């Protein structure tokens, strides 16, 4: 049995601020096989983006990984030095961010920004790097790449820019791509196209994909597995079909119910009452108890992660039946 592409085990990442310790990522564990898509779902502040940054080693002071392991193809990442991380980033692991207008440098040309991504990792000539970039642009569905390459980011639409960002992520043929809400800032139609293409690219090349989002409906169509995060912890995980059809955690249920597509026309949209807690002062017990309609006395203690069924984990004392 081959080892999984990515294995995250007990990851904890904390920010040590003057106001206190913020446990941004608190005991997160999951695995990802090659060619599969994992959805990381949660509200803002749930720690999903921070998990992504941790895997990429992009956490700087005052944040720090305090515990846990991250294994890429069996190789431990948390103990790498800065130079080793740099070699890994953009080459074996790539990241796509939410707003392509801001992630592409507005004063540099597209070809400059793409070519540097290639030449940072491979000692090739500019021409051969350009050739690779052209090929990557074609793969993401940009037909006339040469014209695009000579342009500046502000000359393109949002969808086009995001495709460029994806092309940059793909150009060195990474093993793993982490996409942090890449379609949130785009039109719905473009969103659909990009989702489809990402899925196709990953299954074609065997690249693993972690898709970070707050939108469950996106996950439903795209991912193979899903982890639901709340307040820095994974509260439920499993295959997408299982979790969405039969959620076990009250929070997952709440998320599903609040989807507009699940709403009966004419009735008010269901909402999870209350607000996400501040990560700086979580209480000792379950982070969700104040907003949970199934909270019980046992929830005053922090629930541990346990295996609820084959392939499903859960962190709850009083799950849904």
């Amino acid at each position, binding site marked *: 049995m081959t080892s999984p592409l990515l294995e995250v085990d007990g990851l904890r990442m904390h920010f040590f601020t003057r106001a206190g310790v913020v446990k941004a990522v608190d005991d997160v564990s999951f695995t990802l096989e090659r060619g599969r898509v994992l959805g990381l779902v949660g509200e803002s502040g749930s720690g999903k983006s921070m998990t992504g940054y941790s895997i990429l080693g992009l956490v700087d002071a005052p944040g720090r990984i305090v515990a846990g392991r991250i294994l890429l193809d069996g190789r431990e990442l948390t103990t790498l030095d800065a130079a080793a991380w740099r070699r890994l980033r*953009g080459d074996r692991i790539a990241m796509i*961010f939410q707003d392509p207008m801001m992630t592409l440098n507005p004063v540099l040309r597209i070809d400059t920004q793409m070519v540097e991504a290639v030449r*940072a990792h491979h000692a090739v000539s500019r021409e051969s790097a350009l050739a690779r970039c052209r090929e990557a642009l074609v793969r993401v569905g940009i037909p006339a790449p040469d014209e695009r390459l000579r342009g500046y980011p502000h000359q393109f639409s949002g969808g086009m820019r995001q495709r460029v960002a994806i092309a940059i992520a793909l150009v060195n043929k990474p093993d793993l791509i982490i996409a942090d809400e890449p379609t949130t800032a785009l039109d719905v139609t473009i969103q659909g196209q990009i989702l489809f293409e990402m899925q196709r690219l990953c299954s074609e090349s065997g690249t693993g994909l972690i898709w970070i989002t707050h939108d469950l409906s996106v996950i439903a169509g795209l991912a193979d597995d899903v982890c639901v995060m709340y307040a820095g912890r994974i509260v439920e995980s499993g295959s997408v079909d299982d979790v969405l059809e039969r959620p076990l955690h009250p929070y997952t249920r709440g998320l599903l119910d609040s989807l507009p597509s699940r709403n009966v026309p004419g009735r008010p949209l269901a909402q999870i009452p209350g607000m996400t807690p501040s990560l700086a002062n979580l209480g000792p017990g379950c982070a969700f108890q104040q907003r949970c309609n199934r909270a019980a006395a046992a929830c005053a203690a922090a629930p541990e992660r346990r295996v609820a069924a084959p392939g499903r984990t859960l962190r709850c004392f009083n799950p849904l039946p």
Partner: protein
Amino acid sequence: MLAYAIRRLGQSAFVLVVMSFLVFIGVFAIGNPVELLVNPQADQEERDRAAAALGLDQPLAAQYGTFLKRAASGDLGRSFVYNVPAIRLILERLPATMELALAATLLAVLMGIPLGLYAGLKPDSPFARGIMAGSILGFSLPTFWVGLVLIMVFSVQLGWLPPNGRGETVDVLGVPVSFLTRDGLAHLLMPALNLALFKLSLLVRLTRAGTREAVLQDYVKFARAKGLPMRRVIGVHVLKNILVPIVTVIGLELGSVIAFAIVTESIFAWPGTGKLLIDSINQLDRPVIVAYLLVIVTIFIAINFLVDVVYSVLDPRVRPGTAAAH
């Protein structure tokens, strides 16, 4: 790109005309031009002749035309004190002033941007805090007093550098410059440093603010996520972004450097146009003052124009013809 340049050129010419009009009004309409432009020691007959030559009996509009015509051909009157054409005096001393101003700007840029970058990247380090404290001192200290202290320390106490004057000059393309000789450099160093101080402090603060803002931007995150070495992230991505406002400031401040050179030239007895101006004001040599004004205004307008052009080269979003999509 060319169309933009031509348009800006046209605007500059317009401002130049407006300024010449203002100077004209100041001298001919408000002041008594005979008083202002004729040697006070002239007798009445000479004054009448001068008045006729200046065309003062003609309507104001015609006078303006004459004024412009004469200004365009370089005739701005003769200096009372030296009895040579005023414009010649100014142009003779302009190279010295420009050399000082450019040296000061160069010093400010070469020191200010790296210091500001460092202070922006590591804002909590003791060195960075020192830089910021120093920058407050730098723009608080009146230029002339710093010059005095420099002379006190380096010339009087330590005897390392000469306290005044310009050093040996060498002709480059017909223009005498002094930075190519050792003696010239020794004379140039203190005045240039003195003049640079204010701008240096401004640049440090500006660069620091820009850097601090830039490193929080997403494109820096993305550049790091691509695995680029820090050298490139800072040196290319951050730098090119912060350069845009910085270059604008440098360019616009160049005019103010030339103006403040007046003070530095007075302290260090540097033979430039600034010292000439002060002497002329004290000696009531008004044609020289007028000539100085017109020349300086022309230089300022030229600088503004150049800055605009450089700005559009650095920031592609500003160029017409590369308008944003949708």
